[in-house]
């Protein structure tokens, strides 16, 4: 059982050794004459301006979190919508009400966020 995976492990080991060898040999044997322009982050691009560790306003996180609400909604609604005809034939309207309850609870959460003023941008 486990022997069948031996070729895969061999390929992984050979690949890792080969990649490491290439990287280190160019480091070892290649000529290195660094200059200020060469060691800049984007050698042929624009000069970097300011620090990369900038703080992002917390408003973006709230929008991102609200995106998750709609994400989950779609994830559940889509397969339910595709299969609804079969579900209806089997369960009748019991296939319909749970999704309505789910939507009400979800939209109440959205209404809560809206009422608490999370969508005000200033």
């Amino acid at each position, binding site marked *: 059982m486990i022997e069948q995976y031996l070729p895969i492990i061999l390929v992984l080991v050979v690949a890792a050794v080969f990649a490491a060898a290439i990287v280190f040999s160019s480091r070892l044997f290649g000529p290195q004459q660094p200059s200020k322009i060469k060691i800049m982050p984007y050698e042929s691009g624009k000069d970097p301006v300011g620090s990369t560790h900038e703080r992002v306003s917390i408003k973006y996180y709230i929008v991102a979190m609200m995106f998750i609400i709609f994400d989950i909604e779609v994830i559940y609604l889509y397969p339910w919508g595709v299969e609804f005809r079969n579900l209806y034939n089997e*369960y009748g309207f*019991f296939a319909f009400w749970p999704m309505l309850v789910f939507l*009400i*609870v979800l939209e*109440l*959460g959205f*209404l*809560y966020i809206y*009422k*608490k003023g999370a969508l005000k941008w200033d």
Partner: protein
Amino acid sequence: MTANTEIFQLLPHLVIGVGIVLSVVIEISTKKSESILPWFTILIFVFAGAHSIINVYDYQILFGGMYAIGGVTAIFNFIFTIGAAIMVLNAVDYIKKSKMNFGEFYILVQSSVLGMMLMAGARDLFMIFIGLELMSICFYVLAGINRSRMGNTEAALKYFLLGAFATGFIVFGIALIYGTAKSTSIDQIVFAYEYFITDVLFLTGLALFVIGFLFKIAAFPFHMWVPDVYQGAATPVTGLMSTTGKAAAFSVLIIILSAVFTQNITNNFEILFAVIATLSMLYGSIVAIAQDNLKRMLAYSSIAHAGYMTIGLAAGNIESVSGIIFYLTAYAFMNLGAFGVIALIEGSNEENLDINSYSGLNSKSPILAGFMALFMFALAGIPPMAGFFGKYYVFVASIKADLTWLAIVGVFSSAISVYFYLRVVVYMYFKDSTSSIIIKNSFTGLLAVIISGLLVLVFGILPDTLFSIITSVLSY
């Protein structure tokens, strides 16, 4: 098709679930939500608790073996809902005093209680996990609900990071159990427990699962978060976390190991639990002696109490299960009462938590001093209070399981713990007041303390009322 009607069997859960949704509506629709929500919350908790305890003999398995109602689950639901109701009653004035009067507080308490109820009733590993996450995430937020306090934020962050780590253990354990048992149904796992337990992978998975929950009950090697979190979180929240949260974790431990308790199978975890119980009891009792902050002292005492209850898991017979459940009930009300008194005496900005603030309390507020003494005696396990019978039943179960040495260690540890519990009583009655604390009158807070005090006395004087229900329920 049967799921259509089965859903109405879950009336307490439905009431709390609808209550959460309605609370959100109340919170966003009126400005006065802070004065409506506490009473609404208490109302649904009391209804759910009463419904559970009335239907305690109505044991049913629902949703194709996914969920159980009645029986032990009903007793756990009673602990969760009534404990949370007492805590909310106590918190009404506390959260006004410390300026964290958000309506979300009550919504989060309701959600966490729903999570606990799902944990206690679950008969499937995934249901347990959903309930655990619902409870834990609400607790993380509740621990840090007062954003302006440093201690609160620290508590929430520490609890979240370590709690998430423990949850990882649980998920990995579930994966291994599912991989070997080919099922997540607890009934199937329990049914073929004897066969599975010889499998090393299953044993590893079960051990990881148990370790995750030992973290949640704050047993010894997994207790690092307890003192900081219990000290930093708001006092009523600490009361809720240390009592109902512990009960919820124990309900899962009892269910997953129920094969050991009901069938005559050798308890593979006997040594593990015995060692953990010994270390928790001794560590909690000895370190609590050195604490001057009352919340921190109760945090270490909570570790010790987790140890006493773990004796029951080590004993692994049917008596020990009823002992653990009785202990959890008694512990819930005495600890909630103690934290209730602390919440009443605490100042608006985490002052007066030191033991010196309690010196001469008897002359200022004889009622509070009396109840604090009652809870301290109960926690120490002195006979007329419920704490004594909790310990008694657990120790008797361990003697029946040939673990007499564990019972002796337990008695020894209780003797140590008497020192720091009674130190508070000595300060209250035999020292002159050194601090000039002003105790704000709070009718609801006092009412919560009185109710928990009465429950501690009732379960202590008439332990058989509860114990006979537990034993008769456990027979099926």
